[in-house]
């Protein structure tokens, strides 16, 4: 799960000619950093149903969880970063189409 999301982020970064500066921390810490807009993205098992959902932005689903009641897996972005969110959603949609075809 985490490895899958990591590969996805690396792939997004390649598309955008960006380098990823990874930081590892507890989810709560990362969401708080995201809210303060100190980081750009949180990946690695972000549930769609997180109580943080109205304080941060969530992309479209990127996968599922082993436990079905956790909802879909997503990536998290800082609140109000609408262009960033749209860019991510478009890339995710494109990767999913590539995979399907």
């Amino acid at each position, binding site marked *: 799960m985490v490895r899958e999301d990591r590969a996805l982020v690396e792939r997004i970064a390649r598309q955008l000619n960006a380098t990823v500066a990874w930081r590892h921390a507890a989810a709560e810490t990362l969401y708080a950093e995201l809210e303060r807009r100190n980081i750009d993205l949180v990946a690695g098992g972000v549930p769609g149903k997180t109580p943080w959902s*109205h304080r941060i932005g969530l992309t479209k689903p990127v996968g599922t969880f082993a436990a079905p009641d956790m909802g879909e897996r997503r990536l998290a972005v800082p*609140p109000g970063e609408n262009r960033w969110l*749209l860019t991510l959603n478009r890339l995710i949609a494109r990767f999913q189409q590539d995979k399907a075809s």
Partner: protein
Amino acid sequence: VTIADLPPEIRKDLQHARRLEIVTLIVMSLLVVIVGLAMGSSQAMQTAWAEDLLSLVPPAVFLFSTWLERKEANARFPFGYERCHGIAFLVAAVALVAVGGFLLAEAVLTLIRQERPTIGSLSLFGEEVWQGWIMIGALVVAGVPPVILGHLKRPIAERLADKVLYTDALMNKADWMTSLAGIAGLVGIGFGYWWADAAAAGVIAFDILHDGWKSARIAILELADSVPRKLPSAELSDDAARIGAMLRQEKGVDGVRMRETGRMIDVVIIPGEHAPSLPNLEAKIRAEWRVANLSIGSRVVTDAPAGAGDVERARAALAKK
């Protein structure tokens, strides 16, 4: 006076108004659903929902009170049901104030908390479409009917001296202006200004509060037996000025006391030394459909502090400075 006693053209206008209000109730309820589906379940959505619900209040109380107006006076209501329309006016005006208040509170809270609205995207025909576009579409659809309805209601409200209907037209104005502010806000968000939505809503909220306050104030004045007022300006109503001047010229009339009972006017004559004849006075104002009740008051009030019953003085005092 019941609706059956009103002139035919007024009865026709009233029927037209009732049909318009039924259409308003149906259309606005549908819009609540459409906008709700486009907006999702955000905090802002809950406020919008509360506002939409409140915008149904004026048409609902209009239909209820005009239904009551059809009833004749009876043992329990010896003066008839005219004043119900005055109560409906207060309720409608307070609903308008509440809409403005909700909108302003929401805008201010958003600005203080510096909440940045996050708007995602939807898959439409294999394209990721920014949800803001869909919201703008929904707001355009939601904004058109209130413009038309409000435009149709205003002239009828003036002919009917119907302040509930007038307030409802103001509510329609509040509805379409809120939609317009929402569109401006979304465009602003699209350009990266997170505060655009709240700022636009805040500006509109002041306008709605201003309209609501003017209506509520006149509604309270009416229920407190002040002289009849125009709606937008709180000046003495033209009908009252005309009726007052006409009756004042009659022999034996020392003063004319008037108050508004719903759309009607209640007239009490202050008699001089020689009381005027009531049938004479009635003949004078036959053409004035708004006079629901004309009576000759007791001589006692002539000794009351000056001014009561002096229509000219009332007009001058209320005239815009």
